[in-house]
């Protein structure tokens, strides 16, 4: 079964090409950022403890930035390529799989939070234990202020809430009605 959805606007070929290049490069960008970030954290010495030598939080501007990025993510949806997608049975299954996996991974993160809150030991030979995600995030914000002045914190909050605004408040309507 094939059905056109979305918009009847003509396709902007330049925007469409840029969109495709962005998609093809994005997995490499994710790996290029994620792998070095993990290695840096694991190899880093001197930040084992959250000593909080300065009081960087609370920071209302970071919260306002998240709100602004959320609205930006919504209104950037005005800029579309005009591409008409096709919906097939396979694409429906694929889409469901993507959404289920996204929520499953989110659930796993919350399980990590639960383990941290429950103060689960990391190893059997040491008294070290996992902490709630909040602990690591706030610790990371503190370290980021020391290292870059909070640049990475700003980037992460902007990106996260831009995506949230784009995904959960899309600037369009369901052109062909609800789908299963």
């Amino acid at each position, binding site marked *: 079964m094939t059905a056109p959805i979305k918009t009847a606007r003509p396709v902007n070929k330049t925007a469409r090409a840029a969109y495709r290049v962005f998609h093809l490069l994005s997995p490499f960008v994710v790996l290029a950022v994620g792998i070095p970030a993990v290695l840096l954290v694991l190899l880093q010495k001197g930040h084992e403890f959250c*000593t909080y030598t300065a009081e960087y939080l609370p920071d209302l501007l970071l919260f306002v930035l998240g709100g602004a990025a959320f609205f930006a993510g919504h209104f950037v949806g005005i800029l579309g390529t005009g591409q008409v997608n096709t919906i097939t049975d396979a694409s429906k299954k694929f889409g469901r799989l993507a959404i289920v996996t996204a929520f499953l991974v989110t659930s796993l993160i919350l399980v990590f939070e639960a383990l941290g809150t429950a103060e689960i030991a990391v190893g059997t030979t040491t008294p070290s234990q996992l902490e709630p995600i909040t602990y690591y995030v*706030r610790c990371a914000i503190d370290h980021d202020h020391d290292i870059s002045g909070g640049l990475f914190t700003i980037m992460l909050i902007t990106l996260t809430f831009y995506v949230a605004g784009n995904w*959960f408040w899309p600037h369009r309507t369901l052109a062909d009605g609800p789908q299963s």
Partner: protein
Amino acid sequence: MTPAILDTYSVGMASVIWAITFIRLFVSLVDVVCDLRDWPTVSDQIGDWSLRNPWLARVLVGLLFVLLAHFVLNPLHPAICPCLPGSLPPDHQ
């Protein structure tokens, strides 16, 4: 709380970054497949889900902002901060 108990920053933060990297890698790979096949991308799929389930989407967005507020609108130092060996006040040691 002893310093040894707090000594999990590296493994904990690495786990958080791995989780975020995995999610973004998964989404970007799915987007590549969808783009090449002219299928709706993950953004399209989740956007459609949000339009079909507006209240769930609102709750999810609300949860995100609550988390952000929790992270950035609380002071770093709690009322009692056992951050360094010997930093506890005498009545808490």
